[in-house]
């Protein structure tokens, strides 16, 4: 579904992404793990068009989207839950969700998706008139995910959805991700929480300072000694 080939990204003189290639097949959960500053967020932002690449190609279902705008990529079915949630804090929960469907015009289908999001995250339905900035961290993460789902994505890119959440909530978020995937959405997941990410991922890529150093199925990487040492705490 998504194919990244020989991607290079720079921030000024900083060479942040050094020729990586990543493939995500339809229906999969693929995770990208690695230490701080490895370049995971940058990769994801390049996929959704928020960051320009220096060289390389990105295709979606065989179509070249390397130079497409962020808006076009949303229209084509890529949705991005950015690192740190980035909700619209003075707007209400409902307004945030409506903005998720900003590019859509099919009112009745939007209403269906809205009730689908409320069903998945009942807390959002309870808080729909509340200013989003007053939600707890976990609720904000759910709102950010709900907002991304409102564009009815084929590929959902998640950047550290478990960041700063209590263990119980992390489990809940990962259950939801798995469920979203089972309902037909392909997922590209960036995580620091390697053990959780590897458990639900079909395949995984390990990133270090801008390069992919290891790749395999989630189960394979869980057994790898290098991974155990570096990311799973022994």
């Amino acid at each position, binding site marked *: 579904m998504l194919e990244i080939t020989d991607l290079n990204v720079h921030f000024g003189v900083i060479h942040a992404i050094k020729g990586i290639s990543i493939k995500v097949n339809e229906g999969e959960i693929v995770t990208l793990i690695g230490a701080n500053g490895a370049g995971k967020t940058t990769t994801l932002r390049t996929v959704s068009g928020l960051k320009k690449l220096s060289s390389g190609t990105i295709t979606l279902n065989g179509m070249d989207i390397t130079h497409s705008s962020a808006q076009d990529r949303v229209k084509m079915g890529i949705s991005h839950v950015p690192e740190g949630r*980035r909700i619209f804090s003075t707007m209400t929960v409902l307004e945030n969700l409506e903005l998720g469907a900003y590019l859509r015009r099919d009112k009745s289908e939007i209403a269906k998706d809205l009730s689908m999001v409320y069903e998945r995250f009942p807390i959002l339905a309870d808080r729909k008139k509340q200013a989003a900035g007053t939600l707890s961290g976990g609720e904000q993460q759910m709102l950010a995910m709900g907002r991304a789902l409102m564009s009815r994505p084929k590929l959902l890119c998640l950047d550290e959805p478990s960041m700063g959440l209590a263990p119980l909530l992390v489990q809940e978020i990962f259950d939801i991700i798995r469920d979203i995937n089972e309902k037909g959405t392909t997922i590209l997941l960036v995580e620091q929480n390697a053990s959780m990410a590897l458990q639900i991922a079909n395949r995984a890529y390990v990133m270090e300072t801008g390069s992919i150093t290891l790749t395999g199925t989630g189960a394979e990487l869980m057994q790898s000694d290098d991974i155990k040492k570096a990311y799973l705490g022994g």
Partner: protein
Amino acid sequence: MQKLLGSNFLKKAIFLAATFGLVQLLIVTGVINPFIMDTLTTICINIILAVSLNLITGFTGQFSLGHAGFMSIGAYTCTIITLRVPTTLGFITGLLAGAILAALVGAVVGLPTLRLRGDYLAIATLGMAEIIRIIFLNLDITNGAAGLFNNNQYVNWFWLFLFTAGTVVLISNFIKSSHGRACISIREDEIAAEAVGINSTKYKVTAFVMGAFFAGIAGSMHSSYFYFIKPDLFGFLKSINILVIVVFGGLGSISGSIIAAILLALISTSLQSIPELQMVIYAAMLITIMLFRPQGLMGSKELSLSLFKKWSSLIHRKNGGEA
């Protein structure tokens, strides 16, 4: 829903017509003398300036320090045209030409700077307003530092009201539309706005160009009502004064801008009898009010019937508690 919108629209139209009629009556009967009319005109012009800057800074979150520059483009264009075509038609033509020219300059400054994130716009607009001032200072057609006299006053209460109400209605409607939502989302979080598919550059430029257009109209009104313009009237201080009204009323509140424009004009008019202390007292009042309400008079809320109901129920509850 359709009915609701309709009745709301009717209410607004009646309110506007009543305001216009009442003031017109007071003018005809001489209750509003020329002195009060000057204050009223200043208020209207400041409302146009503040509401249009609020669109850029309060709603879209782009910090602009050059609003007086756009105003001066309107003022000079309109004066130059009315001096050659001294009719009401000439005035309206000049006003529109001035507004369009201001919008064009806005596009030229906004397009390159608004692509970037960050506060580049503040610096660019600061420079722009200064360059415009220096151009007007050196051109023959603008008569340099001495400025220009407009021989005829075309702005009367009718035009004043039409353009002030028009500006407020157009900008409020824009903000309530999905375009306005897009602008506000950029203010809230530009990256998130891009992530949901909003073309942030497009909306930042649109808001900026619209703001410049209306500032141009305000300039034309000013030049035609007060007869006289010179480059120094449109310096940095003027831009700051407009920003003060916006911040004072509340970033992101149209009714806040309107209330602030009225209050500040009344305060500064009432201080005119003590010119030595005028600026000191004005500044002290501003500081005091901002200390107690840092979010401005209205915050980002709008004045509405439901807000009144909320307030009255709050007061009710308080009184009930005490009894």
